[in-house]
């Protein structure tokens, strides 16, 4: 059981609420969080005498799988005190007994037939090896770099294994393979450290991004407190003739027998199947989880906005006409409400009609920003080096975290401008400070393209974007309206939305969402898989003008030392 302070409880509740994966037990002085063990994304299987077709890297000759699930396994999640960073241990079952691993293969996977043969023959496999990505197995709030002692892939040896089942639903993108085994060895991780450990972040790990002091900076510097950041998925009142809803009985019972349906109905009575319950989640063929392994059912569909107008940015530099750029899937660009063309925001197609994620009205966006408003992860935009507010081709734009609370009016509705904020050196935030060159064109602040941009959204999983850009438009009241966009790994996003509870709360079907993400992915082309792994996405940002003060020189040493100490 992980010892943790009471400060960890809200985070656990939030995970429970949003991911539906979190179970926790409260003792007198300690509690632990447990989560289901699965993820969507690359894993690799090596079976003696079966030659896999994966051709890249250390897993050349292995069988690539699309997703995995350790049914019944609840991984204990480290939840440290506020300010502590941790990494977590493997997802896999612990040694010392039998277990089950479910993997999925795409229907076009060249190793599909081999796996089907193993399944059909039920051939006993003395052992097989499974490689599971550390990065993809991380809980959503697990931040920071991979510790040097942690392997890129956890390796397991499954002993006396059998591919015991391989249900397939016609029209599904993937097929599941249920591998049972008598025992398991962890090949590159000590079971004694199954729960991971503290993540050490030293000052040299932190980006050297300190605010330009509002009071003493000689060059023009502007600071803006972010009061709202959420998916830019709401461009008009009429964009969705009909909104998505949580899955219904048509999905729940699609792969059930009449006897099973009768039994479920009898058991649940009038209230029916509850979102997030096993009856809801395990609706895939063979009673497998269609939430954790959404590709194993046919696409139930996800309603998309009926609109060519979307908020956002031109991320790929192309207007959509002519030949697609390298690494970009041809797609239809949007037009912004202000008339800008070439807008890349394919996420709008996915989330634009999902109630929980639709702009300012989206409950998920609201809860996340409510915590931001409470000061849980205060973030500021800094624009510095401004010589001319209208046109300046050499400015810098920074995102800097503070632990000072934003101040709102007594009704809680309005953020008060003009407050000063101090930067935080707490590594879970300071790791995600950024500074990038940019320019001002006709008053609009534009950043250069950033190869990678990670933003700690606090309650939400880390937002990791590639080829990211920022745009801030001045408003008449001294604030700026901002957009941050880039390409997001849609499979990582899927993992964070793979929750039956969230399906019910936010109004979507996980398989429908997964298929939509896959269908709309337009960037981060992977030549090894031939897949587009990223989807263009844009977050809209509201701000109020603010100030920042730099850390006084006499505090710098102490703060940095403290940072290192905290990380130990």
């Amino acid at each position, binding site marked *: 059981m992980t010892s943790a302070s009471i400060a960890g409880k809200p985070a656990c509740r939030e995970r429970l609420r949003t991911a539906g994966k979190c179970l926790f037990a409260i003792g007198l002085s300690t509690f632990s969080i447990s989560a289901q063990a699965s993820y969507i994304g690359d894993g690799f299987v090596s079976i003696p005498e079966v030659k896999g077709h994966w051709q890249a890297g250390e897993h050349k000759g292995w069988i690539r799988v699309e997703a995995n699930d350790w049914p019944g396994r609840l991984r204990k999640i480290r939840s440290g005190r506020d300010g502590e960073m941790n990494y977590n241990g493997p997802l896999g079952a612990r040694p010392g007994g039998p277990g089950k691993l479910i993997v999925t293969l795409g229907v076009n996977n060249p190793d599909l037939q081999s796996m089907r043969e193993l399944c059909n023959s039920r051939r006993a496999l003395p052992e097989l090896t499974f490689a599971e990505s550390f990065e993809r197995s991380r809980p959503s709030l697990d931040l920071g770099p991979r510790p040097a002692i942690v392997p890129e892939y956890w390796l397991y040896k499954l002993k006396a294994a059998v591919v015991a089942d391989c249900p397939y639903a016609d029209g599904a993108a993937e097929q599941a393979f249920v591998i049972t085994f008598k025992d398991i060895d962890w090949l590159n991780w000590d079971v004694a450290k199954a729960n991971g450990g503290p993540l050490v972040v030293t000052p040299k790990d932190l980006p050297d991004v300190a605010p330009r*002091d509002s009071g003493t900076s000689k060059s023009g510097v502007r600071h803006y407190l972010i009061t709202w950041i959420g998916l830019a998925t709401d461009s008009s009142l009429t964009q969705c003739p009909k909104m998505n809803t949580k899955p219904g009985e048509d999905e729940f019972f699609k792969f059930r027998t009449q006897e099973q349906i009768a039994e479920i109905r009898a058991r649940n009575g009038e209230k029916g199947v509850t979102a997030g319950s096993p009856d809801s989640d395990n609706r895939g063929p063979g009673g497998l989880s269609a939430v954790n392994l959404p590709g194993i059912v046919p696409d139930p569909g996800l309603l998309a906005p009926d609109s060519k107008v979307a908020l956002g940015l031109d991320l790929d530099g192309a207007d959509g006409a002519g030949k697609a750029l390298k690494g970009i899937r041809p797609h239809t660009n949007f037009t912004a409400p202000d008339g800008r063309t070439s807008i890349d925001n394919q996420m709008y197609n996915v989330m634009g009609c999902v109630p929980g994620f639709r702009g300012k009205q989206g409950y998920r966006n609201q809860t996340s920003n409510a915590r931001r408003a409470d000061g849980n992860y205060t973030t500021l935009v800094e624009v510095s080096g401004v010589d001319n507010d209208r046109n300046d081709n050499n400015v810098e734009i920074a995102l800097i975290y503070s632990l000072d609370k934003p101040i709102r009016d*007594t009704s809680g509705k309005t953020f008060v401008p003009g407050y*000063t904020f101090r930067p935080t050196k707490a590594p879970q935030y300071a790791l995600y400070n950024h500074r990038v060159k940019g320019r001002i064109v006709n008053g609009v602040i534009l950043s250069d393209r950033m190869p990678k941009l990670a933003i700690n959204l606090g309650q939400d999983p880390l937002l990791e974007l590639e080829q990211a850009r920022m745009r801030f438009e001045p408003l008449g009241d001294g604030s700026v309206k901002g957009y941050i966009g880039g390409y997001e790994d849609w499979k990582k996003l899927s993992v964070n939305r793979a929750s039956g509870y969230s399906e019910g709360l936010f109004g979507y079907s996980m398989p429908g969402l997964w298929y939509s993400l896959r269908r709309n992915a337009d960037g981060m082309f992977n030549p090894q898989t031939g897949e587009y792994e990223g989807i263009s996405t844009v977050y809209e940002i509201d701000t109020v003008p603010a100030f920042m003060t730099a850390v006084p020189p006499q505090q710098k040493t102490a703060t940095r030392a403290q940072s290192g100490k905290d990380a130990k």
Partner: protein
Amino acid sequence: MKTAKTLKRFSKSGLLVGAASALLTVSFTGSGVEAASELVSPGGPPTVRRLNEEQYKRSIAQIFGAKITVPGRFEPPVREDGMLAIGDSKVIVTPTGLEQYADRAREISAEVLSDANRANLLTCTPAAADRFDEACASQFLGKFGKLLFRRPLGERELASVMDLSRRATQSSGSFNKGIGAGLTSLLVSPYFIFRVEVAEPDPARPGTQRLDAWSLASRLSFLLWNAPPDEELLDAAASGALRDPAGLNKQVDRLMASPKFVDGTRAFFSDMLAFDQFNGLSKDSAIYPIFNPQLRNDAQEQSLLTIVDHLLVQDGDYRDLFTTKKTFLSRSLGALFGVPVDYRAFGGWMPYTFPANDPHSGLLTLPAFLMLDPSHEGRSSPTIRGKSIRENLLCQPVPLPPANVNFQIVQDTNDPVRKTARLRLTAHQESPACAGCHRITDPMGLSLENFDPVGKYRTHENGVPIDASGKFNGKEYANSAELMKILRESPATTSCVVQRTFEYGVGRKPTSGEEPWLEQLNMRFAEQKFRYRALIRTLVTSPAFQAVSAPTLAAN
């Protein structure tokens, strides 16, 4: 020469009443200042002043330690003649208030004699826990009786509380409970709850009276510390040292050198500036989202810090409080002024000087003064601001408005024609019944219209430029900064703080007989270059501070 001028002025203002009794008997002295003879003040009546909430709490903390909690609600203070300190001498204790005092006394007594605190406060050991120990009880009750009553208990008083304690010990079978009952009786005594001033014949002026030494000690400590006399001051009263000018000066030096002098100064200016109105002060957050309890508290603290720093730390000219650019900022005040603050302002205060061209200039342009209007949550009131300047800072009372006044025009901030307060008030003054007072209050208040109801600077109201010009004492000004310069030079500004300091110290308005002396104190203040420390020292070491002109209560 100065005396002649003074008398001429008294003559003009009709203040010579009582001056006939003034004799030149005492010399003011001071370094680098021309020595002048001090007029003898006939004094005024002694007062019976109820301890205000802060004084009560500070008394308990000073006598028993800061750990002792003071529970319950206190009866509200009353402002009379511009000062709570004067109101304190005109209030009574209601039956409900008495119940509160009694409950509070029992709880304090129980806490003092609790296991956690008894060892520190009960310095003798009773012979037995269940029997009355005469010597120990006498030591305990005598010591704390003296501190609570701010004088030794009389024989009958001590005998009475001893008898009560004895009987309570017998009935409860507990010595601690017995003396606890005695302590409770001391805490509910009017001699603790009220500061009862006692007079005695003044041997230096046969036929006249002065405060007795204990009462003088209380006047000194409550003025300088806003707290009761400590043991050393009471010892000086007991020994007669307080009657000796050297002994008095020594005690005044000590009291003014203490950090508690800051507390006393803050308490005085809080009273003078009517900061009690901050309790529950609110503004319409839909119109002024920046206003919140933190800003309210910070605004009050900012002004007090500015006053204390200027008058005590910098020993600055009192008049400069009206024009100073120096102040302190908290994080919330930085937001109000639209300036960044540094690390010191987070949970603390950052010294700050407004730029020379900044419209903020002096105390009256700080938010504490500007927001302190409990009757208008959604707009500024030039009338209230002007009235506050007149009454609180110039000591010029403004008559109450007539009962049937129609405020409709003034209150309509959405008036499509009269878009500024100046236009609305001009229309309001068309009523002759209103014009008289508004001519006194409004011009100065209108000059502060560049500051909204929470103190934020503005140039327009409803899209119309604000005209902050006016005329005061025959001098025209264009804006608030110019008005502040005129106020700084006004004799009324300095004479008012002299008058208020005196009133705060003695708990009443000056009698007509005291006014010549007070005028001389005012002149002396000018000679001292308007230094507050010097003013206080001159006041409290003067025979006028302890002169009594009327019968008084007897101690027992």
